[in-house]
């Protein structure tokens, strides 16, 4: 594939752009070094090979990196018009606002700060809490995993850092809003560290000003859960439907720790997300809920891995997708069980509901099991809405669109039931209902 780097006399995601970016930064030296190494990696790599397993169903040719410019953080960033969905009626314990990948406001309830909780801009925390950030940043995502990870590691602009000390419980949800302007970029990074016995709830949403907005998001998320800790993490992605979205997301779960991770992907023109949960301590558990709801010409790919590296762990991934128009979803789910990971309980399921003849759903659940004392199952179903249900609803006075809206909500109900945060359930329900196409 030909290089998508611009000629060097013009600023972009190129050598000139990178050097200017470095000059503007106020990073500790160790971060600058990481960035330089990652930039060298970025330059030495090609875009992912269309023949490789994870990319063979994703056509990257329409993606042109040279259409985007790195954000100049010396200029104030403000994205007007992006909605905020997850905070309705919620009593928050803290919030961070991001505009085009830069933190423009941050707040944390004093009672948590007093206990040593840190929640704020990643750039600032890398300076103010260097030891903590250095210990955990970029430890789970190798910059060489693909060109997007390399670029992210080299040129992340800002992000969020959440640190919860041992046995501290942050009982109120913490909110992060990421807004990306039309045609702009967001290269932010999320780093969450929970020490032993800590607990927190994080709501992260990504929005654009309009449904038709474009832009380019290249993100990374790393979550480290110490023994017996508990994290509920919700990510709602609703970028405009001309946006390109690439993200690597990792969570490492320690002994007897638990993560409840909810993902809702409804926006973007093209999304390629690599989501991995590594259960590294005995008794670790993860519950992942995925909602994919696509329309138009959207193409959303989720490559997920549940990795059991320790015994007595339990993982449960449920992804449900509803497809409209000419949209396409690709879902890959792999449960890997390492040698010695006895008493593993792994479960995975992907259900697809197709609302149009032009839609396409690819479902690729997988298992690689190297221990014998395990129980791993997966399932996948695909089908359409039952005509009788629509007819029944219409005979009760509902329009076809209303009927489909109810059926789609019913389809996702199993996911809603697994989300233990009321505001999220409601917000998702509203967002989904709004997205149901007006069918004749």
């Amino acid at each position, binding site marked *: 594939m030909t290089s998508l780097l611009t000629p060097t006399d013009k600023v972009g995601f190129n050598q000139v752009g990178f050097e200017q970016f470095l000059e503007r930064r106020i990073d500790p030296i160790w971060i600058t070094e990481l960035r330089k190494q990652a930039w060298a990696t970025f330059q030495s790599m090609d875009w992912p090979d*269309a023949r490789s397993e994870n990319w*063979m169903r994703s*056509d990257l*040719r*329409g993606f042109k990196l040279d259409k985007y410019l790195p954000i100049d953080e010396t200029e104030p960033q403000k994205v007007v018009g992006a909605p905020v969905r997850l905070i309705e009626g919620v009593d928050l314990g803290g919030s961070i606002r991001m505009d085009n990948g830069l933190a423009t406001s941050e707040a944390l309830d004093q009672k948590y700060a007093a206990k040593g909780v840190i929640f704020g801009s990643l750039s600032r925390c890398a300076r103010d809490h260097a030891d903590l950030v250095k210990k955990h940043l970029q430890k789970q995502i190798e910059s060489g995993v693909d060109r997007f990870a390399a670029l992210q590691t080299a040129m992340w602009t800002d992000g969020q850092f959440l640190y919860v000390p041992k046995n501290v419980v942050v009982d109120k949800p913490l909110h992060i809003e990421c807004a990306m302007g039309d045609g702009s970029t967001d290269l932010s990074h999320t780093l969450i560290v929970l020490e032993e016995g800590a607990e927190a709830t994080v709501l992260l949403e990504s929005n654009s000003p309009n449904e038709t907005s474009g832009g380019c998001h290249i993100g990374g998320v790393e979550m480290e859960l110490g023994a017996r800790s508990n994290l509920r993490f919700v990510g709602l992605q609703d970028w405009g439907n001309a946006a390109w979205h690439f993200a690597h997301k990792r969570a490492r779960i320690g002994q007897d720790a638990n993560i409840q991770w909810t993902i809702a992907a409804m926006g973007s*023109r093209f999304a390629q997300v690599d989501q991995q949960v590594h259960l590294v301590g005995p008794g670790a558990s993860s519950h992942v809920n995925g909602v994919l709801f696509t329309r138009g010409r959207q193409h959303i790919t989720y490559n997920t891995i549940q990795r059991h590296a320790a015994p007595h762990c339990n993982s449960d991934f449920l992804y449900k997708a509803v497809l409209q128009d*000419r949209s396409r979803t690709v879902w890959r789910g792999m449960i890997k069980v390492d040698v010695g990971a006895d008493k593993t309980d792994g479960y995975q399921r992907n259900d697809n509901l197709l609302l149009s003849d*032009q839609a396409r759903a690819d479902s690729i659940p997988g298992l690689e099991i190297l221990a014998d004392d395990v129980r791993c199952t997966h399932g996948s179903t695909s089908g359409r809405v039952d005509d009788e249900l629509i007819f029944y609803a219409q005979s009760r006075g509902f329009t076809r669109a209303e009927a489909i809206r109810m059926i789609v909500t019913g389809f996702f109900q199993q996911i809603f039931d697994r989300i233990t945060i009321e505001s999220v359930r409601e917000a998702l329900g509203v967002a989904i209902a709004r997205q149901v196409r007006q069918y*004749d």
Partner: protein
Amino acid sequence: MVSNTKDFQFACKLSSLQPNQPQTFEIEDRFVIVVLLNEQVFCIEDLCTHDGGTFGDSQLEGACIVCPRHGAKFDVRTGVATCMPATEATLSHVVKVEGDDVLVQLRDN
């Protein structure tokens, strides 16, 4: 419902086409194959229905483009699949030539 007819859009210059040499062009954010065959211009979607991949550097055999990965063949005039392992037609688009401009009306089904 998604509309079936769109305007004609510019694909490429007629003078850039070599006889019997399929080439890939981008229209909006879709990719198509354009080929000059027996002095007529044809256009099909750059998509092999067998494995969903692109035609890339493929050759023409008669009136059929041959997918380099597994040998599936499609008639460039109609998009119809003529050889296993493909069984489904790929989209065939309408072509209009005005002067040196090759214009394509993209179809959706």
